[in-house]
Every structure is written in C-alpha cells, then in structure tokens.
C-alpha cells in the first residue's frame, strides 16, 4: 500500500505528507505536539506507578495487592464508620428518647422519618409497597385500620416480633379453615359470608338472597369468639374489624367465602434480631406518621 503513495513534500509548509489522499486533499505529516507527547508518557508512567501502589493485576487465585495496602472493603468500612459517627449526634438522641418524645420534637421527628423512610424502603417495601400502600393480603399502613393495633407501642411491638413469626413474642391468632377442615358446611359458610358482608353494608350481588338469620347464627357460634359479637374485631388476636370499609383479602362475596373456607394467616417477620433498636424506633415513627397512627 505505502509504496503506491508518494510521500511528497508540501510546497506551502515544507512538511512532507502522510501519503494519504482523499479527493485531492492530502494530510501533512506533522509531528505530535510535544506537550501532548509528554502528557502521554506521563499517563503511562502514572499507570505503572498505580499498578505498584494499588491493587491492580488479577492472579490465578488472588491479585496483586499494591504497596499502599489499600483495600476497597476497608475503604467502605471506614466510610460506614464515618457515616455512623455523623449520625451519632442525632442517633444517640433517638436511642434515648421515647417514641412519644420523638414525635413531639420536630428535629427528632424529621430525622426519624427520614431514617425510617430509608429503612422502610430497604426492608418493608417488598411486601407493604414503597409508600406503605400494601396489597391484597399485605396491610396498607396508611389507613387507620390496624390488625394488631395502631398506637406507637403496638406498631413497635409488631415490627420487633412480627406476627405468626418464629419469634417467641410474636403475635399469634389464626383464622381457622372452617370449610377445608370440615367445621362448617358450604351453605353455612355462604350464609356467614353474607351476614358478615351485611355488617359493613356491602352491596348484595344480583340474584343472591342472603339468609341473614342463619348467617347470624353461624357467626355467633363460630366467629364471634375472635371477631366479637358485634364483628368489630380484636387486635389482641389480630382479628380484623368486619364492620369497616377495609378488607385485607377482598370484600367481594367470593373472597369472603374463600376466607372462611380456607382461613387466613398473613405472616409478618420479626425484625428485632435483624435491625438495630434505633432503626426500629425510626421505622415505628415513620409508619405511625404515614397517617393512620393512633
């Protein structure tokens, strides 16, 4: 290739050309600017020094450590320690204050809500949703309906020990599978479902004639023990209020029949071993301040 090009000297500048030609335009073979060349050499030198100073080359089972002894893991641990130290000023106050005090002190409240929001996103959002909006079977934490109570202490208790978790102090209370376990027959279940729906004035589907008298009878014999004679529920047992507008597992007739037939037992893990007490405090305040706290 090169042979076919003439490395001629440009008449105007007196500099030889590279021999390339495009549509009559030729390229001068100027040397690289000296400053550029020096910067280039410096970068090479820099990379060699870097290899010596810092971890660089992969070996078969390990890597070159570098003479400075810098480790990314240590660096991140220092960063985390710094972060903890930064937070300590507020973190210590948070640890010392009671939940009520936190809610009444604006700076502590703001700090707890910020920390709580972050912890909620990391730990709680997978089930309860990013804003605590919940989903079918996963309670909405924004509303004022609480299975296990909505006061600060009750919320903290639920986060610490969970519900139906392996924790010794976990909330317990199961909704039996009345249908599956043969405690009630299908017509009784349907009647109970219609009765329960009537407690919160839910619309009766077309073509259905509810037998409310029979339903009431079944309810008083089987359900009232946990849900109460008036159906208002019992937070000691996690038995939901059946007279309000909030239905965790659905309020349509089929869903209610399914709940009575198969039982329901949502599981909330215990966080006491996994999150530090201050974070749990922050979470409690955050959840309480979403709007539904009592």
């Amino acid at each position, binding site marked *: 290739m090169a042979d076919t090009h003439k490395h001629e000297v440009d008449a105007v500048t*007196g500099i030889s050309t590279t021999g390339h030609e495009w549509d009559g335009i030729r390229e001068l073979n100027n040397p690289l600017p000296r400053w550029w060349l020096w910067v280039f050499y410096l970068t090479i030198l820099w990379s060699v020094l870097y290899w010596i100073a810092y971890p660089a080359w992969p070996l078969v089972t390990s890597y070159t450590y570098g003479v400075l002894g810098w480790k990314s893991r240590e660096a991140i641990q220092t960063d985390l320690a710094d972060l903890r130290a930064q937070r300590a000023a507020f973190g210590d106050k948070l640890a010392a204050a009671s939940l009520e005090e936190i809610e009444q002190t604006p700076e502590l409240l703001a700090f707890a809500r910020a920390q709580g929001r972050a912890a909620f996103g990391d730990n709680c959002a997978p089930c309860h949703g990013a804003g605590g909006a919940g989903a079918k079977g996963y309670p909405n934490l924004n509303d004022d309906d609480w299975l296990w109570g909505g006061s600060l202490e009750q919320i903290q208790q639920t986060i610490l020990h969970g519900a139906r978790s392996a924790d010794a102090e976990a909330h317990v209370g199961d909704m039996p599978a009345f249908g599956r376990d043969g405690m009630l027959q299908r017509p009784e279940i349907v009647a109970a479902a219609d009765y329960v729906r009537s407690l919160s004035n839910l619309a009766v589907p077309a073509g259905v004639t509810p037998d409310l008298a029979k339903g009431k009878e079944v309810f008083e014999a089987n359900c009232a023990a946990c849900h109460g004679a008036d159906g208002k529920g019992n937070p000691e047992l996690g038995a939901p209020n059946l007279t309000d507008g909030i239905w965790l597992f659905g309020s349509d007739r089929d869903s209610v029949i399914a709940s009575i037939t198969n039982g329901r037992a949502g599981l909330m893990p215990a966080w006491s071993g996994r999150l530090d007490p201050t974070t749990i405090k922050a979470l409690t305040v955050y959840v309480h301040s979403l709007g539904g706290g009592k």
Partner: protein
Amino acid sequence: MNVATKSENFAADADDDLPLYEARRKIYPIAVRGTFRRIKWTLLLVTLGIYYLLPFVRWDRGPNAPSQAVLVDLVNGRFYFFFIEIWPQEIYYVTGLLILAALVLFLMNAVAGRIWCGYLCPQTVWTDLFQVIERLVEGDPRQRREKLKNASRVQRAFEAAAKHFLWLMVAWWTGGAWVLYFADAPTLTMQLLKGEGPMVAYLWIGILTFTTYVLAGHLREQVCTYMCPWPRIQAALTDEYAFNVTYRYDRGEPRGSLKKTEALKLEGLPAGDCIDCRQCVAACPTGVDIRLGSQLACIQCGLCIDACDTVMEKIGRPTRLIAYDTEMNVQRRIKGLPPVTKVFRARTVLYAALIAVVGGIMVAALAMRGSEGLSAIHDRNPLFVQLSDGSIRNAYTLRIVNKQPMPRRFALSVEGVPEAQLEVVGGLSEVENGRPVVEVGPDQTYELRALVSTHAKLPLGASLPVTFKITDVAGGETSIAPDHFKGP
C-alpha cells in the same frame, strides 16, 4: 508557549514569508500623564479598593444572620448583599443581574466602543497594576533597553526576581481577598494569618494567585486580543456613531518630522500635525498603532490620546490629534461638513429602555419578595387512602420557608375539598381558629406532612384542585401552594 514555538517552526519550515501565526511581541508601554491616565488611576483605585476591602464591610442583620455586607455562604446556601438575602431557589435574581450587566455593556459599547475593556475590565485593571510594578522595578522601556546593553547580568536577574516576587504578592493578595467573600472575613483573615485556614481556602488562594500572575503578568494584552470573546461581539454591536479612539488623519496627515512640517507650513504646502514621534504606539498597552485606523486589539483606553496630547502641548500644536471621535466625522471634516454626534439613537435608547425595564422588574421583585413561602408535593404512593369509615384521605409533604431572622408560627389551612379535615404531622399542639399551627425557625425551612381527608362522596376518578395556605399567626402574612386531591 508551545503555540508560539510551533508557529515559529512553521514559519521556518515553510521557508517562505507566510507564517500561520503571528509570533508574540512583548509589549512594554511607556508611562503617560493626562486626562485619561488620571481617570484610569481613579478607577483602578476605586475598583481594587472595592475588591480588596468590601469583605470587611459589616452590615447588621440581627442575631441569627451573619454581619458581613457581602457574603456567599455556600454551606448554608445563602447569598447576602447588604439588605438583600438570596436563597438558592432565587438564583433568578443573579440571572437578572447578569442580564443587566450585559445590557449595560451593550450600552457602553453603543456609546463609546470598548470602554469597558479600557477602564473597568479586571484584566485591564490588574495588567495596569502589574505594569506599574514592572516600570517601578525595571524602569521604563528606554531604561530597559539600556540595561539590556549595559547593566550586569546579576542586576538584571535581581530586578527580574524582585518584579516576579512583587507580582506574586499582588496575585496572592488577590486570591486572599477572593476567599474572604465566602466566609466571615475577619475570622478567616485571622485563621489564614495563623495558618489554620481551611484547605479549600488555600486551594482557591492558590488558584487565583496562579491565574492572576499568569493573566496579568504574562498573558496581558493577549487575553484581550485572542482569548476574550467580547471584542468579536462588540464589533457586531457597534455602529458608525459610536465614539472610538480615533486618529484624526484629516488633521494629522501628511505626517512628517517637526522641522519638515513646520517648513512645509511656512511655504503654505500641505503638512499634517503628526510628527511621527510614535509616542502613541509606545504608550499603547496592546501594541496598536492607532494611526492605522481603529482595530481589533485596541481596548479604548485612551492612553495614546494622553501620549499624543503631551507631545502636542510640547510643540505648541492643538491637542486631541487622537481623540474619542468617529470615522464618519473625520470623513465629514475632510468634506468640510460639521461633525455630527448622536448619542440618542435607536440602539442606545433601546438599551437604556431595556435596562430600565429589567432594573424595574428586579427592584419590584425585590420589593414584593415575600418573607415566607410554601410548596406542596402530593404523596406519589399511595395517591389516596380509604379509611375504615369509608372516607378518603390524601397525604402531602409541605415545605414552609421562613425568610425572616426570627422564629415564626404559621396556621395552615386548605381549600377546595368539601368537608375537608386537615391534620399535620410535626406541628405544634396548639390550634388557631381550628387551623393547625406550625413553628418554623429563623431563616429556615420546615417540612411537614399534611393529611387531608373528607367524608364527602367524590365522583369516580376525581382530582380536585386544592390550595394550601399558611398565615403568619402574629403578622398575618400569607402564602399559598396549589395541588390536587385525588379520589378512587
């Protein structure tokens, strides 16, 4: 440097007289005396005085705010300028100032060309200062040339060292003054004197020392001729009525030595006033020969006028052979017409009007600037919550701004939702007229969560416009923020 070397190589390689770049001639202007030099000294003292001393000027803003008249408080995000205090979200005031600055520059240019460059530009002011130092230490250009021939190497090296040392001192002081605008000046000065200043202060002092030393000491007129975009822009903005430093060739030509022109004049032959002494060129800080006509490198400093006037006075000819004048008038005088000056032209009037409008808007905005503010953000998830009694609730994050240097209490209310119930998380326990009350610290913002719920039956998919309102419990000032209330 490399560009210069390169261009010399080019010129040499090319082996013909077509260099691609002009090599730099170092310029050592002579000292002059006269009107414009006096104006320049005055402006130099005033502008440098302001720059170096302004950080020490105090301004009382009460106990919760800094007492420095001009302060850029980066940590707390505040800019203080005497009675004005600007928050980060009000950066449009700075935009307004920049627009004003540009318009003033346009107006100056329409009236008298590049006078900004010649009198007020920091590049010119510091270069002037550095040249004074240069002349003080190494002598004027003539003494320089003599020293180059006669003085010993040691003396020259000593003088050069002294000059660069003094330059660096000025440059260092310039950087030192810069950082004082970003912290309490007296405190920082003490810290710097004791060597206990923050790292970032030293860094910026270093950067500004370097730039001042390089730009004012070494690059000088090259900044004005090659680096600065303003000469190009101003060339497009000027017109034939704008005063420019002009050599009145109608009077000056044909030039000739004093003896020759006097002789010609005696004979009644045409002879100009210019005696070709080249004092105007020697005085020019950018190396321009103004007798060739107005040109890109000229910064309108008027020093050539002073230089020529001195010569004219000495030889008893009328001054202002070089003067602020227009090319058009030179032409008119040649034709025997009277000169015209038109300061009020479409463009000057337009610029002045724009300055008045922008300035007026700024003053009005500052005067009507509220000392409190409110903004609202609707919760994104969930958009609404159904409560156990069937009512609907929306949650908002509100941010209240208190721009006054004392704590204030605001009562919060909401409009636009029928039967609305308003609750706040993070408010005080007190209630004012049924409205929740919130306290915001001095010169601070406060974020709270507002919960609005209603029993009213909303149409499906409703999205009602709502307005939050804060009212200062003591003073009654209000501020509002709009948002929406969403239903199922």
